[in-house]
């Protein structure tokens, strides 16, 4: 009851997402978390780090940790190409980091109540994505002609440290 009322109260609230494509699908992160989109893809690999960590990248004297969003979402990794971009997050999201995406897409404005925080019901997601969307705090939003999968940027770094903990346990 209570929850329903609150939902009503914020009904009118619009959210903006910075969207990008991975393996043809559309993903988005809260635009307020994003610092910039950068075409710099010349990164330095960090050996011993989980494979989801691409490496370090230098953006104007600041070193960012670059994560491979494809691997985090359960896709195969792919070589960087002309369209590859990195999405860098603001400092308040966490220690400087960014994610590597296949290509950048438009900014999407959606009503908050359009977003469904469901996990199991959505059969349209591919296997791997389904598994991970919950991890990244995601929700799903139906756009006119496709689905927008929303990631919580604040959870991305946690995934890396959880992975690490996991790999250490298995030693």
């Amino acid at each position, binding site marked *: 009851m209570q929850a329903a009322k609150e939902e009503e109260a914020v009904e009118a609230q619009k959210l903006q997402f910075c969207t990008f494509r991975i393996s043809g699908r559309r993903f988005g992160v809260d635009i307020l978390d994003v610092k910039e989109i950068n075409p710099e893809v010349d990164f*330095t690999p*960090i*050996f011993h780090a989980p494979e989801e960590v691409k*490496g370090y990248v*230098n953006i*104007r*004297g600041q*070193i960012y*940790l670059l994560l491979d969003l494809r691997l985090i979402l359960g896709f195969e990794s792919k070589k960087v190409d002309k369209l590859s971009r990195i999405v860098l997050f603001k400092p308040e999201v966490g220690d400087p980091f960014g994610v590597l995406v296949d290509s950048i897409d438009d900014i999407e404005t959606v009503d908050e109540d359009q977003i469904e925080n469901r996990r199991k019901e959505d059969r349209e997601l591919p296997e791997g994505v389904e598994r991970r969307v919950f991890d990244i705090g995601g929700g799903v939003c139906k756009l006119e002609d496709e689905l927008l999968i929303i990631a919580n940027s604040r959870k991305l770094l946690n995934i890396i440290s959880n992975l*690490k903990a996991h790999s250490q346990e298995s030693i």
Partner: protein
Amino acid sequence: MIDDKETIDNLSTLDPELIESFISEAKEHLNAIEDDFLNLEKQKDNPDRALMDKVFRAIHSVKGAAGFLDLGNMTGLAHVMETLLSRIRAGEIRPESEYIDALLAGVDLLTAMLDDIQHSNKVDITSVHGRLSYLLDHEPSTSPTIQKSSAEFAADHVKETSVLDKSGADFGSTVRIHVDILDNLMVQAGELVLVRNQHLLSMDDSDPVPRSVAHRLDLVTSELQETIISTRMQPIGKIFGKFPRIVRELGKKLGKQIEIAISGSESELDKTIIESLADPMTHIIRNCCGHGIETPEERVRAGKPKSGHIMLTAYHEAGRVNIEISDDGRGIDPEIIRKKVLEKALKTESELDLMSDKDILHLILLPGVTSADEASDVSGRGVGMDVVRTGIEKLGGSFDLESTVGEGTTIHLRLPLTLAIIPSLIVTSGGNMFAIPQISLVELLCLYDEDLKTKIECTDDQEVYRLRDRLLPMVRLSEVLARPMPFTREVRAEITEKYRKEQEAALQEYINAGGEKNGEIFSQSCNFAVVKAGNSRFGLIVDQIQGTEEIVVKPMHWAVKSLSIYSGATIMGSGKCALILDVEGIARHTGIMLDVLIDKDAEEIDRAAKDEDLQNALLFRYGAKEQFAMVLPLIRRIEPISMSDVELIDEREFITIDGTSTRVLRLDHALTVSPVVEREEMFLILPKHKRPVGLLISGIIDIEETPAQLNVESYMEDGLLGTNIIRDSMTLFIDIYRLVEIIEPEWFADQRMGLLSTAGLPPETAKQILLLEDDSFFRRLIRGYLEADGYKVTTAEDGRVGLDRLDESEFDLIVSDLEMPVMDGWDFLKHVRQGTHQQDIPAMALTSLDTDKDRKRAMECGFDHYEVKLDRERFLTTVAELLDLEKSKT
């Protein structure tokens, strides 16, 4: 009071650098305590103990150093300030404004005297001194009326206000900024330059609007970068300024007429570079005076003007600072260098034949090569140029030398304008760059061809290299990077096997191809860096060694912080990131630390190196042959004397110094050394000894930083602390306390021997003594005395460490200094006495504080005995007594 002329003479006999460093240190102390005084005043009811101690120590250090340099006025003033402070510290006086005012006036006056140290003894200190003594002699009072009664000092107040006004005006034009902020600005500016460069490259020239924007960006960026760099800049005149003095003194000493001309003093360099440039530059100037410039007679014979010229020029060029030092002296003869190099077997004749004259001149940079026929006090031991070159190269600079026989020598230094944060070796592995901090680097090696096969050997799970008869475990960086899991024995064995096979296969291929017969050389190379991790060393094999670079260290991102093989990351000049390797982490990862492969020898050497504190020692001469040294903390001061003033009484020599007959000690009376080279003008070292004694010496060489660890094995004699190689010659370190005992045995009654119950007993029953002393020199010295008497000694550098040691094991006696950082001797003993463990242990205070107050306070804290530093005989006797007492109690 000593008159002014004498002060100047005395100062000029000492190393000017010593005086410089005294001035800068004293100024630092004085600057820092001004605020502290004001804070003390604010918290007058309950003065902060730590703050009080800090202020006291600062004034105490100034006094000590001024005393050593024989600056009577400064010592006197600092002394009365110290006394006042000690009473405030003891809680007898509350830090009322009138005291703080007087102390601040003292600080001002001390600072003023430091600014003109040559004339410091001329400064009138009577009013401030009087004011302080007045406050000491009169009962402390909190009523403000007293303050008025000291109207006689009103004049000083007026002076103070003017000082205040002046400093108030200064605030307008300068701001103190932390160096970190400047560094950060510098990094950002560097990035901006990269962005600008990229922008300029990618710009479409045809469109005028972006072009003009780009042009402005270009200009602004350059200006911004220059401005930021200039924040760290200081004029080179800071070091050049002291050279005329050095040249004048050396000229006088060597009987040469030398003039020095300086230009470009205003050229600016980074603060860090300026600081590290002083030593190499001084060496070069000394060389010019020592070898370069001829004596007036020689010059006249060669048809040159009587006085020699040294030109010192500094100028900016292509983003670097160039420094040229040229003299019009005799030049360096390549033939002499050739001869010397052959003599020392540093190069073979055929090698030399292939070299140009210029190349041969550069050989002077090799250690041990000198152009002088004979080493002198000034130069000629062949160490200097090597030191200069390493010093310059450490700064990222280059060194060039040109010389024409008979016409002179020019030395050309090129230095970068700024320094980044840490010097590192850049290596590559698999196309990626990595930085190894220079601090963990020992040496670099490159193995070729045959050596690869013969020098790298395999144990069952480890490749090892035989480096100068020591086995060095080898680690391949590429393998480390490829394996995220810590190495197990199996993994190590696998790697070893892989490379052994690879090596064999390569060799086989070469033989099969008939390379040997065809005269081809089996060519392969392997680069590795010998690195040290804690107590062990290992070789790190890399693909390529790129060279050294100064890098700005950035910490690892927290999500990957747990990776042990990295210590951070950095951005290279190319704009690419590089990881900084953590050598210890690699050692742990590969498991070589856990292995027994660490050989004992290396461990020993490393431990010694870690322990190796440096101390300043005065080098001097006595006889014709030996070089002697005495560490500075043992010296009160040095006095020039005339031998005609020495009186002979009952076969003993005395001289009157400061109204006291002082016994003149001759080294050859106690040691088997060559007799003194006697001249009319000699020097007397007045040691910190209770008795009025002075050590006769014939000449002062210099003050030199030397390792505190002395060699006691190769040559030892009673009365020596040990020996060390300084400036290429063996140097005997004098144990002045023992020396006095040897020469004047009757001064010391033989009371100790009877009590020495521990001597001759097996070591396990030896008495355990805990020694607390913050000064590393005294720690060694006292420890040595105690150990010589058969005690087992454990040392601690402050009270906090002392308490830890006490928890760890049982002791029979505590010997503790009082003034120490972190936790002082009084607090330490209070803790011991209030504790539950070994609280009854006898304790002795050993300190340089010598007032009844300190004595009383120490006794209140529970010390059983109070001893003033340092009468060896009395100290050891007391130790024996205290231990004996303890024995009879139980």
